[in-house]
């Protein structure tokens, strides 16, 4: 087996295993940390797919940003000083049935579809091309994404600001 093969299976197992831990863990902090491993694993899979820039972005944005946000959420919403990290599951039977069904259906669909696989181009780096694309074909989505982010930031800040103002008024 080649190195890439080994790595692929290794990272797949890490990703899926961590995802499973995330989903099934009772403790939300554990879940959050498991999510971190999942995200890192996905980033590694990106690397195997020659998507180095995306891997880096994945690490920076997901692991560095979103995960931290989630952790903050956990911290801020845990009740009082008695840290209540346990979470409870609902809808257990329909949910597991549905997700298993989804998995089966998807895999079935993937396997039966006749994919048009083209020549694999060995890319050394993608940053330059991505940059050109981003500034060329994708300039409009790029700007829209920027505006979206701005709006999201303002929105998030506004909501949390009101939160603190209200808290103050309440106290």
């Amino acid at each position, binding site marked *: 087996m080649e190195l890439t093969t080994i790595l692929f299976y290794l990272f797949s197992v890490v990703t899926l295993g961590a995802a499973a831990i995330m989903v099934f863990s009772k403790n939300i902090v554990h879940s959050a940390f498991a999510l971190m491993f999942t995200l890192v694993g996905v980033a590694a899979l990106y690397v195997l797919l020659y998507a180095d820039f995306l891997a880096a972005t994945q690490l920076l944005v997901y692991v560095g940003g979103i995960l931290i946000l989630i952790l903050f959420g956990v911290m801020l919403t845990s009740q009082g000083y008695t840290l209540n990290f346990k979470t409870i599951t609902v809808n257990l039977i329909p949910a597991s049935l549905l997700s298993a069904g989804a998995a089966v259906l998807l895999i079935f669909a993937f396997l039966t579809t006749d994919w048009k696989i083209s020549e694999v181009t060995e890319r050394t780096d993608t940053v330059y091309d991505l940059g050109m694309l981003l500034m060329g074909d994708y300039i409009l989505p790029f700007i829209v994404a920027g505006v979206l982010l701005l709006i999201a930031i303002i929105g998030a800040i506004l909501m949390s600001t*009101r939160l603190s103002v209200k808290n103050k008024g309440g106290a």
Partner: protein
Amino acid sequence: MYTQLPLAILILPLLAFILLIFFGKKLPRQGDWLATGLMTLTLILSLILLVTKLNTQPAEAISSSFDWVVIGSQTISFGIMIDNLAAVMLVVVTLVSTLVHYFSMGYMKDDVRYSRYFAYLGLFSFSMLGIVLTNNILLMYVFWELVGVSSYLLIGHWYEKKSASNAANKAFIVNRVGDFGMFIGIMILFLSYSTFAFEAIFDSISAGQLPFGSEGWLTAAGVLIFCGAVGKSAQFPLHVWLPDAMEGPTPVSALIHAATMVAAGVYLVARVFPMLTADALLVIAYVGAITALIAATIAITQYDIKKVLAYSTISQLGYMIMALGVGAYTAGFMHLVTHAAFKAGLFLGAGSVIFGMHAALHKLHDHHTDAQDIRNMGGLKSRMPFTYWTFLIFTLAISGIPLTSGFLSKDEILAGTLAFSTLNGHWFLPLIGFLVAGLTAFYMFRLLILTFHGKPVNEKIYEGVTESPKVMTIPLVILAALSLFFFYSFNPFGATSGWFYGAIQRPLSMVPELLQPATYPVFYEAVSSVHTIAMLLSILIATGGVLMALAVYHWKKISAESLAKRAGVLYTGSVNKWYFDEIYDTVFVKGCHVIMKMLRWFDENIIDGIVNGSAMITKIFSNASGWIDNNIVDGLVNGTANTAGRAGGLLSHVQTGKVQTYLVYVIFSFLVLFVLFL
């Protein structure tokens, strides 16, 4: 021989310290025999060393050293050095220490921390011997601080008393101020000469190297190192700690705050004597003189027996420092030795009195009367004969009455100051010297008379006082014997012919010729020409002081009250110790408190304020945008939401309200569609 013996002398007390600190409580009698035995052994070794050294010709210093650390390309080595000065000092330290050990076995008998006390005595002896033996100014600084710590621990021995721990703190911090100067002096020397060893420094100076190429820095280095002595030897302006240090047990006062540690400053000046310039020596002489005067004037009005002795110690130390300053090197050091004997004796005698008083008060269940106040004593002569007679000898010695050791050394110092003034015209120094000699005789006899003579103030207490046990009186007798002249010189009127003057000779000055004080031959000649006058004058003045004391306190011819009234401001000043404590308290302690409060406020409000302030600014911005949000954006949002809400309201009754349930429906439908279209 010269390396093993000093090392053994150094290590034995340390051994005592270590053994007692770890196993003290488990040993029989809490290990006092161990400490005392080891100390006695040290004394014997020191005596052997002294005799060997004095009989070795030529009388050069013998030193050996090892490399302590290599830093950069410089090697710093530590080592020991034995010259006659060190050998004599060794015997002084070990002798007093041994006697104090014996005395303590009686005095401290029922103390709660008996073994701890002896352990600290061991630590002190170790550090003090280190100061004496070292060949190296850095190592001396190390031991210098260590004696400071052991002094701190011993002053604070009864740390349950707030006054004791305060006194301990004061002693340490005031000493630190002096050590600060010494530290900077050491740094100047090291940066100029890349070595800490005395010999090497002197060699470099005599080879013409000056610190940073300037003569001013050499003087500065000398004066800064002298700062260390100012702290440790309680010289003006850092003398304030010593009277407070009397909070410690009395034998400790005898050992540390009278005979040895406070004399370390004098020893230090003697050690660095060759590198002191004439200017530095002049500063030293004046500091000593001022100290002697101030302390003597305070001592005449004090009533606490230990306080009187403490001020007299400061005053005598001033004498020694002054002697070194004027160039009377041997006389100054000799006064250190004789003073060690009689002042240790005085303190132990005072200890014996206090011990007796305590026992008497204890029997009477009287806890209010101060056992140390001489106004509560009187007439103890017949109750404590041993103590009285030895105390008398010590008092005669410190007053400079002929046939005592004190006379020999004091006389030489006075002659030295007189000679110095004939050479340089500094008349202030001999003037103070003679004045203080008179004052000393006066206040010491005042103390003696009020304590031992006259009628007892309180008959009951008087009845209760008994002579102290033998283990306490024998050290007194030994010290009394050592306070007589023949141990130092067979001629009772001239020390110069004795062995001491032969052994301890003033070292050659190493500084450039222009900066040197008067050379020894010149000085010696001046001393010989004024010696007779000085001797006569000193006998006259001392006798005058004694007679005055007798007239006021014994025969009651002159009323002490009227004298005090006539002195007016001088009297109140003296009683209040010239307000040094109050001034220092307002300027330094309060000043320090003000600064620290200010800085704390600054830290918590300004610096932290800036940090929190940047958070504030962010908050203001967000508030501004919050206003826009509330009034404009929200208006739109609410409008939309209201519309949607009304529309939703129509359908709302089919909802369960649980999001996840809906999601289940959604996904289920999705999968169904998926299957259908696949």
